[in-house]
C-alpha cells in the first residue's frame, strides 16, 4: 500500500498536509554539503577582501622581469605573468576589486530599485485620481525601457559616457539591475497595501505614514535579500566581463577580468595566467548562487 501511495499526485499530498495534525518536520538536518563548501569558499573570499596580507606577503604590483611567465611552482603557486608578477598574490588582492564592485553594484540596484518600486506602488494607492496612476505607469515604463537592453550592453553605454573606472562600472551594472528589484518591490507593495491588516490599521486611526513604515515596508522588503543574494554572483560576472573588455579598472590593477585580458596574448605558452583568475570568477559566482538558493529555500520553508 505504501509504495503504491508514493505514486499518487503531489497535490493530494499537499492538501493532506493541511488536514493532518502537524507532525515534527523531518527536514531538520544540517545544511547540504554543497552549501557548506560554498559557504567556506565565500568566507575565504571575504577574508581575502578584508585582509589579503594574511594569504600572501608578495606585493601584487612588484614586477620581476627576469621571472616572467614562470609556471606554477612552490615559490609561485599560480606561476607568474609576463612582467614576473606573482599570479597568486594578484588573484588574492584582486578579490577586493571583483567582489567589492559586484557587491556595490547590487547595493546600488537594491536601494534604487526599492525606492523607485515603492514610489510606483504607493503612488497608485495613495495619490488619488489619475496623477497616482500616471506616476505608477511612468515608473513601470521606465523599468521596461531599462530592461529591454541587455544588461552588459547598457552598462557599456553608461561607461562610454561616464568613462571607465571602479565607481562607474559599479554604477553601470547597478543601473542595469534596477528594474528587477523595482518590479518586485512594486508588485509586492500593491499586494501588501491591499492586505486586510492594512485596512485594519486604517480602522484603528493610524496615519498613512505610520502604516507604510510599520506594515508596508517590512512586509515588502522581505523579498529583497533572496533576490540580492542570487544577483550578487551575476554582478561579479558582469564586472569581470566589462573589465575584460577594458571598461572597468585599468591595468595594472589586479582585477580578475583585467588579468584574464592580460593573459590572453600568451595563453598558448602560459595557460596559468588565464586559468587561475577564471577559476576564481567561476567559483565565486557558483558559490554565491548556491548560497542564495539555500537562503531562498530556508526562507520559503519558514513561511509554509
Amino acid at each position, binding site marked *: *500500500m*505504501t509504495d503504491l501511495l508514493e505514486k*499518487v*499526485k503531489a497535490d493530494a499530498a499537499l492538501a493532506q498536509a493541511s488536514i493532518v495534525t502537524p507532525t515534527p518536520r523531518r527536514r531538520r538536518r544540517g545544511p547540504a554539503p554543497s552549501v557548506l563548501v560554498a559557504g567556506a569558499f565565500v568566507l575565504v573570499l571575504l577574508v581575502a577582501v578584508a585582509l589579503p596580507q594574511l594569504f600572501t606577503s608578495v606585493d601584487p604590483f612588484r614586477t620581476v622581469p627576469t621571472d616572467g611567465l614562470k609556471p606554477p611552482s612552490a615559490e609561485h603557486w599560480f606561476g607568474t605573468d609576463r612582467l614576473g608578477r606573482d599570479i597568486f598574490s594578484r588573484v588574492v588582492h584582486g578579490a577586493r576589486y571583483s567582489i567589492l564592485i559586484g557587491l556595490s553594484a547590487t547595493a546600488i540596484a537594491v536601494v534604487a530599485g526599492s525606492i523607485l518600486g515603492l514610489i510606483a506602488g504607493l503612488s497608485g494607492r495613495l495619490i488619488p485620481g489619475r496623477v497616482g496612476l500616471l506616476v505608477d505607469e511612468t515608473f513601470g515604463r521606465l523599468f521596461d525601457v531599462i530592461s529591454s537592453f541587455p544588461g552588459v550592453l547598457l552598462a557599456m553605454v553608461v561607461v562610454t559616457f561616464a568613462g571607465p573606472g571602479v565607481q562607474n562600472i559599479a554604477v553601470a551594472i547597478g543601473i542595469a539591475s534596477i528594474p528587477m528589484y523595482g518590479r518586485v518591490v512594486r508588485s509586492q507593495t500593491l499586494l501588501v497595501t491591499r492586505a486586510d491588516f492594512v485596512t*485594519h490599521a486604517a480602522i*484603528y*486611526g493610524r496615519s498613512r505614514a505610520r502604516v507604510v513604515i510599520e506594515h508596508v515596508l517590512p512586509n515588502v522588503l522581505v523579498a529583497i535579500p533572496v533576490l540580492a543574494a542570487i544577483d550578487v554572483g551575476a554582478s561579479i560576472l558582469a564586472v569581470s566581463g566589462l573589465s575584460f573588455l577594458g571598461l572597468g579598472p585599468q591595468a595594472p590593477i589586479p582585477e580578475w577580468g583585467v588579468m584574464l585580458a592580460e593573459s590572453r596574448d600568451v595563453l598558448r605558452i602560459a595557460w596559468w595566467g588565464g586559468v587561475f583568475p577564471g577559476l576564481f570568477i567561476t567559483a565565486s559566482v557558483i558559490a554565491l548562487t548556491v548560497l542564495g538558493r539555500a537562503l531562498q529555500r530556508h526562507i520559503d520553508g519558514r513561511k509554509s
Partner: protein
Amino acid sequence: MTTRNPTGGRELVTVRNLRVAFDDTAVVHGVSFTVHAGECVALVGESGSGKSVTARSLVGLTGARSTVTADALEIDGRDALRLTTREWRRLRGGFAGLVLQDALVSLDPLRSIGAEIREVLRTHHMVPRRAELARAVELLASVGIPQPELRIAQYAHQLSGGLRQRALIASALAADPALVIADEPTTALDVTVQKQIIDLLGARLDDGKGVLLISHDLAVVADIADRVIVMKNGRVVEEGETDAVLGAPRHDYTRQLLAAIPSASSRGTYLSRATATDRLPLPAREADRSRIVLSAQGLHKTFASARRGSELHAVDDVSFELARGEVLGIVGESGSGKSTVANIVLGLTRPDAGEVRLDGQPWSALNEAQKRPVRSRLQFISQDPLSSFDPRWTVERVIAESTLVLGLPAAEARDRAAWLLGRVGLDTALLTRHPRTLSGGQRQRVSIARALAPEPDIIVCDEPASALDVSVQAQVLDLLAEIQADRGTSLLFVSHDLGVVHHVSDRVLVLKDGKVVESGDVDDVFYRPQADYTKKLLASLPTAVSSA
C-alpha cells in the same frame, strides 16, 4: 459482491478497522462503516477528527507520507489494499467521484469547465469523442447550470461560487460513478445555493447511487443523510440512523455538537456549555433603545462594472439605526451588498449619497483627518482573522496596535493586551507567539481582543464565525455575547448564516441586491416574514435540528 442489505442496495464500500498514520502519527484509529447503493452516509466531526482522511483513503489519495492499514477495505467488492496505481486511477472518477470543498482551487484555472468534464469522459471512455461536447453540455444542464452551451467555454474564475461548485460536481459525475464522495461540498455557499447542491446529491440517491458526505454542518447532514457517523480524534464515537443520532444522541460529544448549533431556540443561552437537557442562560443585556449610537440614512453606493458603461448598485437606499447595547443583524446572500454597508459604516468606503452619523454627529461626511481621532469608537472583526494580522507581528503587538492612537504608554498598552487576552479566554503565554501558529478559534479570539482594546462603542462583525467549526463558532459567539452584556457594546452583525443571526440579533435587516427587503425584530422577520425573498431564504434553510 451481491449480498443484499436491509436498504436494498449492494455494498459499495466496506471498511473494517481502518487505520491511517502520517509519519508514525496515527490520525484514524480503527474506523468501520459501509456505504450501500442508494444510501447517503455522513461523516461528521470537527476539523482534525480524521473525517477527510477517512474519505480520502477510499480513493487512495492520502498522500505519500501516509500508511493505510485495515482488516478490510473493499471498494466495489475489490480489495483496495492491493490495488495498483493504474487500478486506483480507473476507480477514481469511474467508480467513485470526489467533490471537494473549494471549487476554485479544485478546478484548473487554465482550462474551461468543458475541458475539465471532457477529460473525465475521455479518461473513462464514457462516450465517443464526437459525442463528448454534447455529453458535457448535458451534464452541466443536469446539475442545474443555466445556459450550459455558453457556460461550457467559461473558466472557473468567471463563474459564481454556486455555479463553480455545480461544475465541479458535474465533472465528478461525468463518469457516472456509483459512489460520490463529497467533502464539505456546501461550506462557504449561500443557503439557496446550498439547497441546490443538496437537492443534486439527493437526486443521485434516487438513482440508486451512493453518497458519502463529509461535513461539520449538522443541519445539512440532517437534510440528506440516511446514516450518520460521528467522529472525534480519529475514532467513531456514535453511529446510526440519522433521526436516531440527531434526534436522540447517546454520546455526550454528539449532544455538544447539536447544542452548539445557533438557532432561534438557543437565543439568550450559552452554545458551548449547553447539555442535552438544559441550557445555561447568557448574562442578561439591556438594549437602550432611546440612545441611538449609529444611524444610517439613505445610503447609496455604485461601483463601475468591468463592462463599459454599466454600473453596479452595490448599496441602494439603505437606512437603519443601532441603539446602545443592541445587536443588529444584516443578512443576505453574497453580492447583496452587506459587506459594502459594513465598509461604509467603518468609514472605509464613502457613500455616493446618504449619511452615517455616530451619536448624532456627522461621521461619513468627515474627511480622513477628522475621522482619525473618532475611529477607535468603531471596531471591526473580519471573517479571516489571519489575513488581518501583520504576518511579522506577535499577538501582543497585534492587540496593542488598536490602542496606539489613544496614546497609551507602551507598558500600559502591554498590560492591557495581556489583560484582554485573559478576557477572551486565552493564556497570556500566547502574547509572544505569531498568529499563524495559533488555531482558527484562537485567532478569532485574538481579533476580538484587538477589537475590544480601545473600548469601542460599536463593533462591526463581518461573518465572524463563518470559517469556524460548529463547536469553535459556539465558543466565539458566546464570548461576543458575554462581552457585549458586560460592556454594553453595540454590534452590527453581518452574516449569511440565518441561524447565527437569529441566535445573536435583536433586530435584523434583510438585504438583496443592495436593497433592504425587510427589517424589524428578529422573531417577527424570521417567524412572520413579509417579503417573498425572506420567505425563500428561510425555506432554503435545511430543516433545523434545533429541537435537540
